[in-house]
């Protein structure tokens, strides 16, 4: 693979890397006929991002020399800390770099990033990479019934009110209102937590299609990178989602690039009101969303604390008036899965996934070729897996080579 970026394109590429670095420590560089895909996934496999640069984005883009087999060249996995420093200072790149050439050299196992700078100065970086399968998340965002679209500025303004230390937020949508609230972890004294809620009228969105009332809780930290990228390009952001427990996809696109971040969402506790632990236990089915319910459900039996959903409640300013929130536990229940039963149920649920038809994978994040990592990390009880994934053994649909399409 060989591509050439000029001036401003280098800065955009750098910004994409910054956004991806918020997700994970490794970068997948996957050259395809559709363009160059940069992808990252977090260690918990609950967040995935993909930036696809079409060939038009580059001054020159070619996949591979004739000697390389197949449709494309090598898919590379790089450490983010190898490549990010090259693009760390975007202002200096803007000032100094005239062109940037990125190529993959198979014989030497190197990704070569060459900056042609002002005054004839050339900077060449030969970065080690690991050959890898392309990273893919199979997520048909176009099948999501609920869609919001807003200028990046609007979403940035909304999230700005949450401190950068805020991990998770809840997006609550009804046909009449959209609000963002911070998600309080169980265990934190509710009287000591600052509660923030921001609401918007559907009219503020460029596009608003919401069928049902929903609360989606997801990790904000991993989204900030994309929002900042979108804002710097003044691109509108589309939010595609179906229900709680199923992933939400934030995406932007323009003529030459598409970027999306897919985040797992917390399984909704139940329909409003405190629930009986038994009710939330769903039979083992082939849908991994239900497996997630199962996961949370089995822990509910242990905790027995009242659970209520944070959204849809009218929160009064005074602390006396506001209800005490004990939202569905996020991390805690997963830590409690110590008993073999818990793992067994999960194992069963996921074992059944290997025979699922393609349609039921809509609700999960599936990753190719991470099976070796999954074996060691996947069901580690310390990892908060919000969305289940199947093992890479079954052949993944070959046509899903691109980023989740809009």
């Amino acid at each position: 693979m060989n591509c050439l970026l000029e001036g401003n394109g280098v800065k955009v590429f750098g910004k994409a890397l910054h956004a991806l670095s918020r997700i994970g420590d490794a970068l997948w560089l996957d050259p395809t006929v559709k363009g160059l895909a940069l992808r990252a996934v977090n260690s918990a496999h609950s967040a995935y991002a993909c930036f696809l640069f079409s060939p038009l984005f580059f001054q020159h883009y070619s996949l591979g020399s004739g000697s390389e087999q197949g449709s494309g060249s090598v898919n590379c996995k790089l450490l983010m800390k190898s490549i990010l420093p090259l693009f760390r200072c975007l202002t200096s790149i803007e000032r100094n770099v005239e062109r940037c050439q990125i190529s993959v050299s198979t014989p030497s196992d190197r990704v070569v990033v060459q900056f042609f700078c002002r005054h004839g100065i050339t900077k060449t970086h030969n970065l080690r990479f690991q050959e890898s399968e392309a990273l893919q998340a199979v997520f048909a965002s176009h099948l999501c019934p609920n869609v919001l679209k807003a200028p990046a500025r609007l979403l940035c303004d909304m999230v700005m009110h949450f401190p950068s230390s805020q991990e998770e937020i809840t997006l609550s949508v009804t046909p009449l209102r959209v609000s963002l609230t911070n998600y309080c972890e169980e265990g934190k004294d509710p009287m000591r937590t600052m509660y923030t809620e921001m609401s918007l009228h559907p009219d503020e969105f460029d596009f608003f299609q919401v069928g049902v009332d929903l609360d989606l809780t997801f990790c904000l930290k991993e989204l900030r990178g994309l929002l900042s990228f979108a804002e710097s390009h003044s691109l509108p952001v589309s939010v595609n989602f179906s229900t709680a427990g199923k992933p939400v996809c934030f995406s932007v696109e323009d003529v030459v690039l598409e970027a999306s971040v897919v985040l797992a969402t917390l399984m909704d506790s139940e329909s409003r009101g405190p629930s009986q632990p038994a009710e939330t236990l769903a039979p083992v089915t082939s849908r991994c969303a239900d497996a997630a319910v199962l996961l949370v459900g089995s822990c509910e039996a242990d905790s027995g604390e009242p659970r209520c959903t944070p959204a849809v409640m009218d929160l009064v300013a005074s602390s006396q008036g506001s209800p005490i929130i004990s939202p569905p536990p996020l991390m805690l229940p997963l830590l409690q899965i110590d008993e073999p039963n818990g793992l067994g149920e999960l194992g069963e649920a996921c074992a059944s996934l290997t025979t699922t038809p393609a349609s039921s994978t809509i609700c999960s994040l599936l990753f190719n070729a991470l099976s070796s990592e999954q074996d060691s990390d996947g069901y580690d009880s310390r990892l908060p897996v919000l969305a289940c994934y199947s093992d890479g053994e079954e052949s993944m649909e070959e046509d899903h080579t691109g980023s989740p399409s809009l």
Partner: protein
Amino acid sequence: MPLSTQSQADDEQYVLVASMDNARNLSNILKAITFKDQAIFSATPNGLKVTVEDSKCLQANAFIQAEIFQEFTIKEDLVGFQVNLTVLLDCLSIFGGSTVPGVSTALRMCYKGYGYPLTLFLEEGGVVTVCKINTQEPEEPIDFEFCSNNVTNKVILLSESLKEAFSELDMTSEVLQITMSPSQPYFRLSTFGNSGNAHYDYPKDSEMMELFKCTKTQTNRYKMSLLKPSTKALALSCKVSVRTDIRGFLSLQYLVRNDDGQICFVEYYCCPDEEVEEE
């Protein structure tokens, strides 16, 4: 100024008296060589030279000519002593190093000779502080025997082009390799780190290359830990000359303009880590 009204009689006892209206003109340049605590001061009628060394492989010198000082009186041909440079810098910025224009710390540095402390009179806004810093027997600075006759390759670059490269250098690389050649790549800085290697190439006809005189292709490696401190000198400078001799020893000379636009020099000498003669 209170300092300058000190009686002549007092001055008689000092072998060295150096005064500066703006102590920053001295402290800034000393910061460029502060990678070790101990510094050797050598004063001659030409001015002041401050030397710092590291592991017998690296030497940094700061030259402040007599003309830079408002007053520079020396009673001997050579006055030498050793002091703790960090302590000296702390004293020079004892008034907090304010950057309000027009306000500066005035300095009067006095030395009575062997066995006496270095006395600093510092004044700002009418307040005078007297600091006495213990001195030691000066060690003999290493003579790197770097002479112009043995220089094989020399370039002078505008610092601006090197500053970015130095700040981006891959610190996981143990060495910094410098290649100088009359043919491609002309002048190249290379690192070999955990992620891979990097090369910074400066062509001989670049606008940043003020002088290019390379007679022989030479590649030498220097310990990164030794050269990294030179980044401070680079940051202060407007031009840098890079020279290597037939042994592969490196000389970096930085032209520094102080607050008042006067010129001072800082130079670094470094031994090669291993000599790699390019074919």
